[in-house]
């Protein structure tokens, strides 16, 4: 056995024992010794793949109620961090990678964490298992390490190959949609080996994830997935691309079985389908090619107004109107992304408010990537899905009364920010994100945006500042969505995307405000 092999095995053992500090230290030491990040990422994904499957994302409690079960986020952390690392550069890029490995051992077997049977951040922080009677092994049991082997709820399967590739893709997506998890997974594996069908398989996998989205979160409790199936599908594809699909089994095993898990939510997809097919008989399949017009400034404002202030039926009708006007799918999608951004930057003020909407923004990002990268006759329908999702999360937040006691007042710091020399703004912004001082952060961002056209350093400051925070891969995920959407957005209002990301980084509630991962990064890499 080589030294490198022993290192990778040690990394796996530390992960499976839920020793996140040990695993992160092992990872950073291996990196410093020359191990490629992608190879270590592959080791971690291969290690956790059997242990990130939930039997369902609905759990029936002893009294008959049903609660939701969180989705695996380990793969989201890797995809976002690998992409952020490319953007942030050699040294700063090691911070998101450190956060990804810091998270992985805390994100195993979410089902058992919720039942207080296995350690991790859900058990420790969300479920407060240490405070429950009769479940803690000792005072810090749910911080790890594990006291028992991690469970496997979905055994691995052999690939299955039958008929034409098109027929198999059709059967695979049907199996996923109808919850036949084993069939969907085996059929995926059968095609994943065939390079000539790979692009079609990627596109179909994204499609299967995207169309599974709740119609509303209002009073629905556990019956939602807030876009995780789509986000995880994209993560799988891009990580498999990173290591080569012949090495991608861990990614497939992590993601594909879960695409078919309960709850399956296709009501909104059906609504969008009925609308599009009735309004564009015989031509809905080519809307992406036929509709090429941008939105005028006035139309952009109208679309934003409907998404911010309308109800779902208004949004559905408005999207149909825009499609009938010949507006390009991505022009409407850009308006949806700006709508989300203006809501977060200028309307949402409670720290809880951006948390779920951030998922909707990432979901928009996956849809836009799907439309930019692939062709599928159903893509016009996805614009309805993302617009409704963003509108819905805004409406959900209206159910929570605004708290005037928060003290979130960027206007109070406008003069302070304006008085700073521009060369000091980004350092102050970094401090404000670290201190979770959203008022100062937003005053600084607005001052910077007004004084200069420079954006790359601004986005890097927001992204790096966000990456200081641990135990939530959505933080990294949100940062990479900012980059991708800002770069692709063709509206005059794309800077709101940076503003909303700065607000998310500086003001949104965090799963942890401790800096263990960041401290490790600094100690190992001197950041």
């Amino acid at each position, binding site marked *: 056995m080589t030294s490198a092999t022993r290192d990778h095995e040690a990394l796996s053992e530390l992960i499976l024992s839920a020793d996140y500090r040990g695993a992160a230290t092992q990872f950073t030491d291996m990196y410093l010794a020359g191990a490629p990040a992608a190879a270590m990422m592959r080791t971690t994904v291969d290690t956790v793949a059997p242990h990130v499957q939930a039997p369902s994302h609905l759990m029936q409690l002893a009294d008959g109620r049903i609660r939701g079960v969180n989705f695996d986020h380990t793969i989201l952390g890797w995809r976002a961090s690998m992409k952020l690392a490319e953007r942030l550069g050699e040294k700063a890029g090691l911070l998101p990678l450190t956060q990804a490995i810091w998270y992985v051992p805390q994100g195993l077997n979410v089902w058992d964490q919720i039942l207080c049977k296995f350690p991790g951040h859900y058990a420790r922080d969300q479920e407060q298992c240490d405070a429950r009677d009769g479940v803690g092994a000792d005072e810090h049991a749910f911080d790890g390490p594990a006291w028992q082997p991690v469970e496997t709820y979905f055994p691995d399967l052999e690939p299955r190959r039958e008929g034409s590739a098109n027929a198999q893709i059709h059967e695979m997506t049907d199996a996923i949609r109808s919850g036949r998890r084993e069939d969907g997974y085996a059929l995926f594996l059968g095609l994943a080996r065939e390079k000539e069908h790979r692009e079609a398989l990627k596109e179909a996998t994204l499609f299967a994830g995207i169309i599974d989205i709740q119609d509303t979160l209002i009073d629905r409790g556990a019956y939602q997935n807030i876009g995780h199936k789509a986000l995880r599908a994209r993560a799988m594809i891009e990580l498999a691309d990173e290591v080569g699909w012949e090495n991608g089994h861990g990614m497939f095993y992590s993601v594909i079985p879960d695409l078919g898990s309960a709850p399956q939510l296709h009501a909104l997809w059906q609504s969008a389908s009925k609308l599009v097919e009735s309004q564009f008989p015989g031509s809905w399949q080519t809307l992406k090619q036929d509709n090429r017009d941008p939105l005028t400034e006035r139309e952009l404002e109208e679309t934003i107004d409907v998404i911010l202030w309308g109800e779902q039926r208004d949004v559905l009708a408005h999207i149909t109107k825009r499609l009938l006007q010949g507006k390009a799918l991505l022009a409407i999608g850009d308006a949806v992304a700006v709508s989300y951004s203006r809501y977060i930057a200028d309307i949402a003020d409670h720290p809880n408010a951006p948390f779920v909407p951030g998922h909707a923004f990432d979901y928009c990002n996956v849809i836009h990537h799907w439309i930019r990268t692939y062709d599928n006759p159903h893509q016009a329908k996805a614009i309805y899905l993302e617009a409704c999702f963003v509108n819905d999360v805004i409406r959900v937040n209206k*159910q929570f009364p605004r708290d005037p006691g928060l003290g979130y007042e960027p206007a109070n710091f406008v003069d302070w920010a304006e008085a700073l020399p521009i060369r000091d703004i980004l350092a102050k912004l970094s401090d404000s994100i670290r201190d979770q001082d959203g008022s100062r952060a937003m005053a600084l961002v607005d001052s910077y945006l007004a004084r200069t056209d420079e954006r790359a350093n601004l986005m890097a400051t927001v992204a790096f500042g966000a990456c200081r925070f641990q135990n939530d891969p959505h933080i990294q995920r949100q940062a990479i969505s900012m980059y991708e959407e800002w770069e692709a957005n063709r509206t005059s209002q794309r800077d709101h995307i940076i503003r909303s990301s700065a607000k998310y980084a500086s003001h949104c509630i965090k799963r942890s405000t401790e800096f263990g991962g960041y401290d490790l990064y600094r100690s190992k890499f001197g950041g």
Partner: protein
Amino acid sequence: MAKLEHPSRLEETWRLRNTVVSSLEQILDDLQRQVQESSFQELVEFLDGFFPGRAPRPEWTASLERFAELLWAWLPAETMAKLEAEYAGRTGPIWEPVAHKFGVENGKALAARRWQPHDARRFAIVLR
């Protein structure tokens, strides 16, 4: 049948605006009277109807913000203090922001922002 002649769009819309102003002012006058004539218990029952599970949709819940602004203009300080105490005494995270709305700090902040031109019949009101 003779066709009606349209005034200019601008004139037509301004006419509509003035018509709505009259209606809206009547509604606000009536709302003010009802608020001031309500018992404390009636006010609390009405306020409780803003919350999820009782409100018909999220927009109704969000309109609590606007109703609280009106209460600060129409009710005496002691009633506002009683409302603050009522919601501060409830358990559950949803009630704390409600209590803060009726706290004296928020009242001062709203009063400082209230805008009424000298020739206006009433102070400016945000609709939603």
